[in-house]
């Protein structure tokens, strides 16, 4: 066409002719091979035509070659025609190497990093929850300031105090200094101070601040009680061992008298305010909305951490009083002994009013139990049997509601029908509730009977979602491992065959890419989603503890399916292209592929109908581990054989397959991260929103809603009993 068309020289074999005609396309080896194969097919057709017209094979070959035209001219025209396409393909290859593969690695790394960070936060929160908290310790204050970096400065001050200060009390004091009229902040500062004061360390400051509390917050018994407890520590040692009976070893009698005087004074005050509930409510209200499980753990941790600042000292004072009264009686100071013994009611009514959690009420119950036994015993020693009996009766009356609850927690007590119901309810909680629910709820006694399956479901599903996120990390880790293996195989064959004959990066069309990723990655994920959410076969109505082994096998099956499908489809594509390019490829292992695919399908089908004894879905851990390991070994052997075959004759094919599958695997990683990760995050947020059982309402904080309901009911009954006893006591006196 407008150029000199010289026929190809005689005797030039097709191979050489084709190499010359396509030499201009060497920058794109796949394209060159493609064009070469097309021209080869053309020449063969032409030769066949000449043979059909009666020429001999050799003549036909020569004629075909001669009519081909000058290979140099064809090479020049082919380059001109393909230049734009070659540029685009070079860009596509660059995008695969420099964008898709790094994006795949980045997706894996981001998922790992985020998971490690989340695990760290979980661990920190769980550790704080499990750790023995020092009296008055605040979990939030121990957190890195960066935790709340997004919050306004004022909110961060109230949550953390001033992180620049050295001690916890100094950090908490900063909040009160910024709001000197707010007694809640002062009370919070004193709470921090109680955990730091030691004999000979900070005592003057502590006493001074308690006196300040009495001054600026008059009528609040807390500061007098704290001072009484503090003085008692220096004045005496207690020995509550069962062997020796209750003993008080007095070190400083004058201090003991002061401690008891403070206690008596406190029990006459109108109110007790630790402000812990106020601080908790305020701080919970400042936190950003819950988006992750660790956000909820933080709230639970906060509720647990600032719950019990003073309870131990109340029990201690209550136990010391009868021993102190005995000392007074021995000294002939019977009136003073009666006065201090009678303080129990004031103490109990203060505690009842300031109770907000079940533990507060249980401590009150324990104190009243001491009153019932020890206080009435001392009255009896005084020879006042009537007072002894009255004290026992009235203390028993106040503690009756909480004691009835305590009895109900013991599942084996009560009438047989109720006992059977309790046992059934506990089994139900263990099977259908979240781990935390099944740990906490049985402690609520008959309150757990009121919990419905609908209320339990979001919490249990939330834990499934967390496990699915862990499964996702496993999937990403295996995809990353496969990418690494593909890279190694590529490098191996590149080193063996040299750069010119080294592995090719075969570019898939968008249809091929969609086919491989759609069927190999998206379809298994979608199938897994349908299976776990809507078929009713996955047993997701059961608690995580029941499903864990089953879930482990399912994740392994899913990973095996994704890797098998993605590699099969990917290698089938590479193989097809390889044959189109006229290159030698190993025989199609279709039989083996079908075999592995059928085995996986059978395993899935069998798995769907696996049933454990006594439950619809549970399986034993050992079976799950054995099956999981067997599957992993099968997949690993298959992958290793594919990647590390020693057939050097077909090394270029294996290398090219590995090199071309690398971006496929990277695309799979990006796709999984882009589809599954946001979905699981959104589901986690949704389930957190729906799970009202374990959520903590800043306006009405409690560990759990059932506990809050129970506490409210028991507190109301206890306060009613307190009011009745209060009305009765003056008449007797």
């Amino acid at each position, binding site marked *: 066409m407008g150029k000199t*068309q010289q026929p190809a020289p005689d005797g030039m074999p097709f191979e050489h002719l084709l190499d010359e005609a396509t030499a201009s396309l060497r920058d794109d080896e796949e394209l060159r091979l493609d*064009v070469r*194969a097309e021209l080869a*097919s053309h020449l063969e*057709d*032409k030769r066949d035509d000449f043979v059909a017209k009666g020429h001999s094979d050799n003549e036909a070959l020569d004629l075909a070659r001669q009519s*081909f035209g000058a290979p140099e001219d*064809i090479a020049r025209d*082919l380059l001109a025609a*393909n230049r734009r396409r070659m540029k685009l393909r070079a860009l596509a290859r660059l995008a695969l190497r420099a964008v898709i593969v790094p994006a795949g690695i980045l997706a894996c790394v981001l998922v790992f990093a985020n998971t490690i960070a989340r695990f760290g936060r979980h661990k920190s929160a769980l550790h704080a929850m499990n750790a023995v908290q020092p009296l008055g310790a605040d979990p939030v204050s121990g957190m890195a300031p960066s935790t709340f970096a997004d919050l306004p400065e004022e909110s961060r001050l109230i949550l953390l105090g001033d992180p620049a200060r050295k001690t916890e009390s100094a950090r908490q004091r900063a909040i009160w200094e910024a709001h000197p009229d707010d007694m809640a902040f002062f009370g919070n500062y004193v709470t921090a101070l109680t955990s730091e004061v030691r004999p000979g360390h900070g005592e003057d400051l502590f006493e001074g601040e308690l006196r300040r509390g009495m001054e600026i917050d008059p009528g609040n018994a807390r500061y007098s009680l704290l001072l009484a407890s503090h003085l008692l520590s220096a004045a005496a040692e207690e020995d509550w061992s069962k062997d020796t009976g209750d003993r008080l070893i007095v070190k400083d009698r004058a201090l003991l008298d002061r401690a008891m005087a403070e206690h008596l004074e406190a029990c006459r005050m109108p109110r007790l305010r630790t402000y812990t509930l106020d601080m908790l409510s305020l701080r919970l209200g400042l936190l950003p909305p819950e988006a992750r499980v660790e956000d909820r753990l933080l709230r639970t941790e906060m509720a647990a951490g600032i719950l019990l600042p003073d309870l131990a000292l109340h029990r201690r004072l209550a136990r010391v009083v009868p021993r102190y009264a005995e000392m007074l009686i021995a000294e002939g100071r019977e009136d003073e002994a009666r006065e201090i013994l009678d303080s129990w009611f004031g103490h109990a009514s203060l505690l009842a009013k300031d109770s907000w959690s079940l533990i507060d009420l249980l401590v009150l119950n324990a104190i009243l139990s001491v009153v019932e036994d020890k206080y009435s015993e001392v009255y009896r020693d005084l020879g006042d049997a009537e007072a002894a009996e009255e004290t026992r009766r009235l203390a028993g009356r106040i503690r009756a509601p909480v004691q009835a609850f305590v009895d109900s927690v013991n599942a084996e007590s009560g009438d047989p029908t109720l006992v059977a119901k309790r046992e059934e309810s506990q089994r139900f909680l263990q099977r259908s509730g979240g781990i935390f629910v099944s740990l906490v709820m049985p402690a609520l006694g008959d309150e757990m009977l009121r919990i419905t399956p609908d209320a339990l479901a979001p919490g249990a599903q939330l834990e499934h979602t967390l496990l699915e996120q862990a499964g996702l990390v496993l999937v990403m880790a295996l995809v990353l491992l496969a990418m690494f293996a593909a890279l190694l195989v590529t490098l191996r064959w590149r080193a063996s065959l040299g750069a010119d004959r080294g592995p090719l990066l075969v570019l898939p069309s968008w249809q091929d890419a969609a086919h491989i990723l759609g069927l190999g990655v998206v379809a298994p994920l979608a199938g897994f989603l349908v299976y776990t959410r809507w078929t009713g076969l996955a047993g997701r109505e059961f608690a995580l503890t029941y499903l864990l082994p089953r879930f482990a096998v399912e994740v392994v099956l899913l990973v095996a399916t994704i890797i098998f499908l993605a590699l099969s489809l990917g290698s089938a594509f590479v193989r097809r292209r390889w044959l189109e390019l006229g290159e030698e490829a190993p025989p199609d292992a279709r039989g083996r592929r079908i075999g592995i695919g059928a085995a996986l399908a059978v395993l899935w089908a069998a798995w769907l109908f696996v049933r454990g004894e006594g439950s619809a879905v549970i399986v034993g851990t050992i079976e799950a581990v054995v099956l999981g390991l067997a599957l992993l070994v099968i997949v690993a052997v298959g992958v290793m054989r594919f990647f590390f075959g020693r057939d050097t004759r077909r090394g270029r094919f294996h290398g090219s397959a590995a090199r071309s599958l690398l971006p496929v695997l990277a695309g799979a990683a990006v796709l999984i991260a882009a589809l599954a990760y946001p979905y699981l995050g959104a589901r986690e947020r949704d389930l957190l929103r729906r799970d009202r059982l374990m959520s903590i309402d800043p306006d009405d904080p409690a560990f759990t809603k059932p506990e809050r309901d129970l506490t409210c009911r028991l507190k109301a009954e206890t306060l009613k009993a307190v009011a009745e006893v209060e009305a009765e006591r003056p008449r007797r006196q």
Partner: protein
Amino acid sequence: MYYASGGEGMTRPERMCLMDFDSDLTRSTVEPIVLRLVSERPMYGYEIIKVVNERTEGAFEWKEGTLYPCLHRLEGAGLVKARWRDSEGGRRRKYYAVTRKGAALLKKKVEEWGAFTAAANALLFGTAGA
């Protein structure tokens, strides 16, 4: 089609003279002709050459150097799509088919060619042409 419209009323020897076409004229017709042929059914390169030869009774005798660069240009421009297929004899061949974009361009080119040849025929032969 293009040949028929340009050579209507000419004798066979006269038409044969057209084999030595001006290269610019040939270049401007190759792409529409290829588009036209692969719009009828998917065809491979050698088949296209044979069909062109048959339908023009030898007037157009394209070489590999004419056809394949043209096919690759069209493929690069998204006017045709190529697909390797095994033919009946077992030989693997690359078949080309027109795309929607190619079909639209073909329609436009045919109309353009019709108008052009009519005008040129009126001037050269004193007829309204095709």
